[in-house]
């Protein structure tokens, strides 16, 4: 569910969280496909960015991890697993956090 800056918004993107102005007035409800007119409204209210549905960003996890040498990836997983007090496979939310943080570390490792 990425934050997208106003200048990068495109018609048809799905708003994932209600957009409200400073007075808490609802401008665009979550679930709405953005129109050009609505982007103008956001501009008029000085709203710099909104949250829209992810467009495949989450699905790049395997690709990103495959870019790492297998030994590095194994070490990253081992270090991360050891950092958690309890096993991370007990619930979907723990697994999601583990995967997101692993991907974040993989990105950092690739940037080095």
């Amino acid at each position, binding site marked *: 569910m990425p934050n997208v800056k106003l200048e990068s918004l495109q018609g048809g993107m799905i708003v994932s969280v209600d957009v409200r102005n400073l007075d808490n007035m609802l401008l665009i409800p979550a679930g709405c496909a953005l129109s050009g007119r609505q982007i103008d409204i956001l501009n008029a209210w000085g709203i710099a960015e909104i949250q829209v549905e992810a467009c495949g960003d989450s699905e790049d996890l395997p690709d990103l991890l495959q870019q790492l040498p297998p030994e590095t990836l194994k070490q990253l997983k081992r270090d991360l697993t050891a950092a958690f007090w*309890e096993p991370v496979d007990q619930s979907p*939310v723990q697994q999601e956090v583990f995967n997101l943080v692993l991907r974040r570390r993989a990105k950092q490792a690739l940037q080095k």
Partner: protein
Amino acid sequence: MSTTLNHLIQGIPSLGSYAQVMAEMETVLSEPHSTLADLGNVIEKDPDLTARLLKLGNSSFFGFHSRLETVAEAVSVIGIQQVQDLLLVSSVVELFDGIGADLADMESFWKHSLACGIGARCLAIARQMPKAEKFFVAGLLHDLGRLVLFSRAPNQVVEIFRLYQSRRMLLREAEVCILGFDHALIGETLMRSWQYPANLVSAVACHHHPMAAGVYQLESSIVHLADYLVHAMQMGRSGERFVPPLNQKAWERVGLATNILESVIRSIDEQIEIVQEAFLRVPDKAALGHSTTCAQQAT
């Protein structure tokens, strides 16, 4: 136990040198004909506060499109409550400014706390909580009790870390072994003495046991989740080497979909630098030193 606890927090003032600005702000706010410009005039007496307010107002933390030039504009965009929160947080940072580098890496400690504040605020916004800005303060102050320990009980801190390094345990368990209570209770007691709002006090008091927070379960659960996320990201250090246990009921209580977590992590990464600049003074490099801290020895 209570004598020691009360002794620890005795005489810690709530606002330090910011008490004057806060009092003047309250005077302006109580006058029916006062304007934002009047409020701006009070804040502008403190150039450091003014600079940080404008920096924060123009940052991605608020995400506004147009550039803010004056304090009055910044107050109108950020909100009076947020300005008061900035004062409050700045005063806490100032209060615990002199903690020795041998006890804790304070830059790293504050990074963890600020990241937790950002995370809690993001989760509260996603949950559409009223006054979501308040969660920034709750997240930021969640480990307030550790600051008290570092500044008021350095010898016990050394003992706590010695025990903590000797076996696989959570830092708060080592605190209970040595002191009889943990940092969450210290933070709660201090915040009660400062007469902070009950929801904020509960969020700090129960950030490890959010379901024990009674009517403030939701607030405590949000701070608990933010703390879990920030530990997992290894964003700064509170002294704890492990990602602490996640309370599954807290996650269910907050009631968000797991796909929100990606945007929360991204927001923390994007906002941490500007928030550090806005809320923390430039660290004194000489004071930071290069010695190893108790907290670092534990890792």
